[in-house]
C-alpha cells in the first residue's frame, strides 16, 4: 500500500448565515485555502473527491455547477455522500484515490450551506430521511398523538435522545455530564476562530439554565446548523516529503455500517435490535483502523481525538468505542478534566460538531483538526503537548454509519 499524507488544510469561517458568499464561492474559499496551505497549484491536483448532503442546500449534484470554482474542470471528480459521515467518507475516498496509485495529489472537500434553505436546512433535510416511512405510517392509520410524540423527539434530536438515555442508563452518568461536555465544547470553540458557537468561559451551569427540548436534552446540548466548508490536500509519499515540512499520515481507516441499531427500515418496521448507544460499527471500525495503523493501546498511543458529536452524549460513547477510555468510564474522565484541551486525552479541542455543524463538512473537519494538531498549526486550540497520533470519527445515517480515521506524524 502506498503511504498517503495530508499536506494542506483549509476551511472557511462557520456561522449560521454566510450571506456574504454563495455556495460555490464558499467551497472555493476552502479549497483555495487548502491549496495555498499545501503550496500546490490547481494544475497539479490529479483528482477531487467531494460531498455534502444535497437535500439541505437545494442544489442537486452541486459539484457539477461549482466544479469550476474549485478548479475541478477537466479533472476526475468523485462525489461521495453518506449522511453525517459524508466528510469522513470524502476524505477516505481521497485517501483511496492516492493509495490506489491512480493519482498522486487529491483534494477532498465537503460543505454545507444550511441557510440556503427557506426553513432551517437541517430540519427539512432530515425530515426527508424518513418522510416515506412516515407517510406510509400515516396511511396505515398512525394516530396524531403518536405522530406528535415522534415529531417531538424526531425533529429536535431524533434518535440521539434515546441514544443518550441508553448510554446514561448503562454507564450511570447523568444529565450534568451532558452539560459538562457541551460547556467544554463551547469553551474550546471560543479558541477556534473558524468555529460557530463560541462561548468563552462557558460553564455547565450556563448550559443547565437553557430550556428542555426533551429530557434528557436541553437547547444548550444541541449543535447549531452552520454554513461552512472545509478541504484537504492529500498526496503520495514522494510528494508529501518534498512539499511539506510536517505531513500528516493517514495510517488507518475504516467505515463500517451497523444497521442493527438503526431506528427503522424501509417499510417502517423494527426499531433497533441493539440499542443505539452500542455502536458496534464504531468498535469494529476502530479495531480495523488501529490495526492498520499499528496502534496496540489507544489509551497510551493516541494523543488527541476529534469526535463527531452533534449531541454531547456521543463524545462519551465514541470515546469509549475508540478505546480511549474503558467501557462506561468516559464520563468519569470528563469529571476529572481528562478530556479538556490540556487534559490527558483531549477530546474535540476545536469545539467539535457540538459547536459547529455544517453537516457534510463536519466529519472532514474532524480529520482536518487532527491534522492541524499534529502539524502544530491549531493556534489557540493547540493542545499543550506533543501530538504523534490522533483519531477522528464521523457519524451518519440513522446512527449506523461510522467513519474512523487514524492519523500520525510518521507513516509507520
Amino acid at each position, binding site marked *: 500500500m502506498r503511504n498517503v499524507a495530508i499536506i494542506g488544510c483549509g476551511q472557511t469561517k462557520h456561522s449560521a448565515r454566510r450571506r456574504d*458568499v454563495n455556495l460555490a464561492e464558499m467551497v472555493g*474559499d476552502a479549497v483555495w485555502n487548502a491549496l495555498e496551505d499545501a503550496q500546490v497549484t490547481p494544475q497539479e491536483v490529479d483528482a477531487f473527491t467531494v460531498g455534502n448532503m444535497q437535500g439541505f442546500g437545494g442544489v442537486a449534484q452541486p459539484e457539477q455547477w461549482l466544479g469550476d470554482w474549485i478548479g475541478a474542470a477537466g479533472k476526475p471528480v468523485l462525489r461521495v455522500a453518506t449522511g453525517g459521515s459524508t466528510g469522513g467518507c470524502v476524505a477516505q475516498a481521497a485517501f483511496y484515490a492516492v493509495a490506489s496509485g491512480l493519482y498522486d495529489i487529491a483534494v477532498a472537500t465537503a460543505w454545507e450551506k444550511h441557510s440556503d434553505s427557506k426553513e432551517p436546512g437541517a430540519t427539512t433535510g432530515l425530515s426527508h430521511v424518513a418522510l416515506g416511512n412516515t407517510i406510509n405510517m400515516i396511511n396505515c392509520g398512525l394516530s396524531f398523538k*403518536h405522530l406528535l410524540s415522534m415529531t417531538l423527539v424526531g425533529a429536535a434530536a431524533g434518535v440521539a435522545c434515546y441514544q443518550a438515555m441508553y448510554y446514561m442508563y448503562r454507564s450511570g452518568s447523568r444529565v450534568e455530564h451532558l452539560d459538562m461536555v457541551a460547556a467544554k465544547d463551547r469553551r474550546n470553540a471560543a479558541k477556534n476562530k473558524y468555529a460557530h458557537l463560541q462561548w468563552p468561559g462557558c460553564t455547565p451551569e450556563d448550559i443547565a439554565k437553557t430550556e428542555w427540548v426533551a429530557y*434528557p436534552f436541553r437547547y444548550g446540548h444541541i449543535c447549531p446548523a452552520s454554513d461552512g466548508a472545509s478541504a484537504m490536500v492529500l498526496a503520495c509519499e514522494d510528494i508529501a516529503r518534498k512539499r511539506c515540512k510536517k505531513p500528516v499520515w493517514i495510517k488507518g481507516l475504516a467505515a463500517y455500517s451497523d444497521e442493527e441499531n438503526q431506528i427503522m427500515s424501509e417499510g417502517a*418496521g423494527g426499531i433497533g*435490535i441493539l440499542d443505539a448507544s452500542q455502536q458496534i460499527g464504531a468498535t469494529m471500525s476502530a479495531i480495523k483502523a488501529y490495526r492498520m495503523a499499528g496502534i496496540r493501546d489507544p489509551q497510551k498511543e493516541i494523543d488527541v481525538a476529534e469526535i463527531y458529536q452533534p449531541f454531547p452524549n456521543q463524545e462519551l460513547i465514541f470515546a469509549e468505542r475508540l478505546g480511549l477510555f474503558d467501557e462506561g468510564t468516559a464520563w468519569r474522565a470528563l469529571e476529572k478534566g481528562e478530556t479538556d484541551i490540556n487534559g490527558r486525552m483531549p477530546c474535540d479541542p476545536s469545539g467539535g460538531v457540538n459547536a459547529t455543524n455544517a453537516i457534510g463538512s463536519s466529519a472532514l473537519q474532524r480529520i482536518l483538526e487532527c491534522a492541524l494538531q499534529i502539524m502544530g*498549526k491549531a493556534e489557540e486550540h493547540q493542545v499543550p503537548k506533543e501530538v504523534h497520533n490522533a483519531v477522528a470519527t464521523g457519524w451518519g445515517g440513522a446512527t449506523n454509519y461510522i467513519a474512523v480515521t487514524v492519523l500520525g506524524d510518521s507513516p509507520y
Partner: protein
Amino acid sequence: MPYIKEERKETISVEGDWDIGGSTTWKDSTLLQGYAQGLKEKRIIGSLCPGCGKVIVPPRNICGRCHRKMDEKVVVSDIGTVTCFVISAPFAKGKMQVLGMDPVETGLVGEGERVISVYVKLDGADSNIDTELIGAKPEEVYVGMRVKAVWAKERQGKLSDLEAVEPLRD
C-alpha cells in the same frame, strides 16, 4: 493556516421556491398494513428470521446480519419491558405545530403536560416498538418497567389501534 476571507460585502440573496415535495412517490411494502390489520384482533405481528431466529416488530423485510428475507410471521405478546424513554418538555400553547395544528389548542395534550415516549421490547420480540407511556408520571418511568398495551375500544386495523402502553399492575 491561511487567511479567512472576510473582505466580501453582503451580496444579494435570490428568493426562490424549489420544493421537490409533491412530486415524490414511494413504493413501500405492505408489511406495515399487515401489521396494522393484526392489531384489529389485538395481535402484534413480527417477522422471524430463518437464519438467526430474531423476531422483529413491526415486521421488517430483510435481516441484514443473515442477508435473508424474513417471510415468516409470528405473534408476540402485548406485554413488554421499557428499554428506553424520552420525556418531552412541558407543552404550552403556541409553542409548536404538528401538521399545521397546535397540539394544545386542539386538546390533544394539556397545557404543561409532558409526554413520555418509550421504546418497548415486547415479550417474544428482539426489536423495540416506539409508543407513548400513559398512566405514569414522568418521574415514575424507569428502564426495565413492565408495561402492557392499551388497545383502542373500537379497532379498525390501523396503527392507532395500539394506543399506548401503561404500567403493568398485578
